[in-house]
């Protein structure tokens, strides 16, 4: 899944992170983002990854990675032990996203989450006009084999943060190579035209 992800997303995440910080990448895949952050921003990176192959890949690259599941194993990281925790496109795949999110905010001083936006217009029309569960580039799986259990839209996550008193510092919408800042004022329109939403929260 990680390989299909747009490089653009990683660039946006990298831009959000200051140099010389300590970052935990949850679901770090083959370590592409960690490598980028280390080389370009001298960031002290750590990864958490479920798949054995990906863990091996990270180790080959000399990137520190812990094999484990974020759903059950975030407890091993002490409070505020990282400046930033990054969760790229996996929030929707957890059994209890709310609990995971709470844990991320405990471990990191700030958290960056990206989500595939279920509010994207192509996703909406697929369901509205054809009456079928949407399959797109960002959501490549069909209903019966998707790992995504809790799909949400940029607006949903926005509202969720508001409700739970989570501070939203910045939201960036990504559509192919274009990025745009999302605020409350343009939320409706950006929710329609962004494929991916990237949230910086604390």
């Amino acid at each position, binding site marked *: 899944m990680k390989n299909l992800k747009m490089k653009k997303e990683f660039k946006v995440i990298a831009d959000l992170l200051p140099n010389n910080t300590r970052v935990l990448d949850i679901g770090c895949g083959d370590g592409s983002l960690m490598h980028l952050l280390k080389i370009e921003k001298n960031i002290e990176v750590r990864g958490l990854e479920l798949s*054995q192959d990906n863990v091996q890949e990270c*180790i080959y690259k000399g990137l520190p990675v812990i094999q*484990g599941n974020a759903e059950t194993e975030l407890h091993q990281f002490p409070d505020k032990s990282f400046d930033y925790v990054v969760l790229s496109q996996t929030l929707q795949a957890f059994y209890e996203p709310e609990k995971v999110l709470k844990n991320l905010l405990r471990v990191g001083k700030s958290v960056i989450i990206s989500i595939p936006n279920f509010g994207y217009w192509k996703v909406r029309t697929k369901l509205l006009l054809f009456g079928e569960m949407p399959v797109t580039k960002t959501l490549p799986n069909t209903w019966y084999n998707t790992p995504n259990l809790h799909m949400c839209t940029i607006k949903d996550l926005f509202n969720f943060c508001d409700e739970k008193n989570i501070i939203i510092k910045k939201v960036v919408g990504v559509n192919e190579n274009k990025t745009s800042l999302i605020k409350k004022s343009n939320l409706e329109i950006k929710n329609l035209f962004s494929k991916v939403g990237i949230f910086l929260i604390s």
Partner: protein
Amino acid sequence: MPSLAGLFFWMNIKLENIKKLNVTKPLKLDCGKTIKDFPLAYETYGKLNDNKDNAILVFHALTGDQFVTGTNPITNKEGWWITAVGPGKAIDTNKYFVICANVIGGCMGSLGPRDINPETKKPYGLDFPVITIKDMVRAQESLLEHLGIKKLLCATGGSMGGMQLLQFCATFPDKAFSAVPIACSSSHSAQNIALNELARQAIMADPVWENGKYVLKNVQPKNGLAVARMVGHISYLSEKGMQEKFGRKLQEKADYEFSFNADFQVESYLRHQGYAFVERFDANSVLYITRAMDYFDLSKQFKGGLVEAFKNQKTKFLIISFSSDWLYTTKDNKDIVIALNASGADVSYSEIITEKGHDSFLLEEPEFLKTLKGFIDSMYEKFKNEKRI
């Protein structure tokens, strides 16, 4: 087959010809006694390069020795870690300089209970001081000094070797650039102690043992020692692994013999392992080394617990566990990872999925060996760069 007394005589002759360092610096042991001018037997493989940045220290397990790879000159069998160490292997001796020392308390040339007590001029037997994992590790520091190595590229070891390694990192936080503890634990559990006690009781119940005085007669309580080894072998395999390997298969016979001979293959295997062991190991050494393992509790040494033990740790760690290892479980290994994380150390962790149990680290286990190789090679590049800066 030569008599056991003859065998020991022959082994002692051979032990004369192995590499030994005479450690002159007195070593105050945890038990309060001091040893000095003692032999530390070791072996090296590969070549130390001019920058002295390619040295890897291997710590051996309970029944291991310094002969990691190639042919063990004493037993004429393959080195115990030939799967991982050697030319072109995961720990490539064409590239790296590999060092391994026999632990004190052992019986492959380092000071142990079979040696002559200078005070009585007789073999120590149970007069040998009780040693700890920390004593073993501190004894090996002199070897690094002797070889002129200030900082190791990596230190590694499985099982008790992993325990020595954790102790090494806690005692000497800046002596290894990287470390790979494999299938180990930061303290012995009740079950671990119980299994070791079973092994010790088997030896002590052998009438030949005679309170450890058998050494004076140049004999060996081989029945007890063989049972001790069998206990170990059961704990090194997983239930499923054992079932797959032996099941209820009979040993070269069509049906039950209605006797107590080794009808089942698993019985025959245990007997073979047990009695092969008595030819190369000393019963009192088993007592001393298992005791050292039982006493091992890294968090007890540091008042703040395990996190405190790894404070200010600069070493880069890779912890490896095996899914079917019930002797030193994934949880035992993960606790080390958690402590390292809590202390802010640089740590990686991988659980290898296998049915081969605790023994996995000694076997041809491709995923494990690939991970080990990937880590050490990447650490070498980093270490070289760091040294250049």
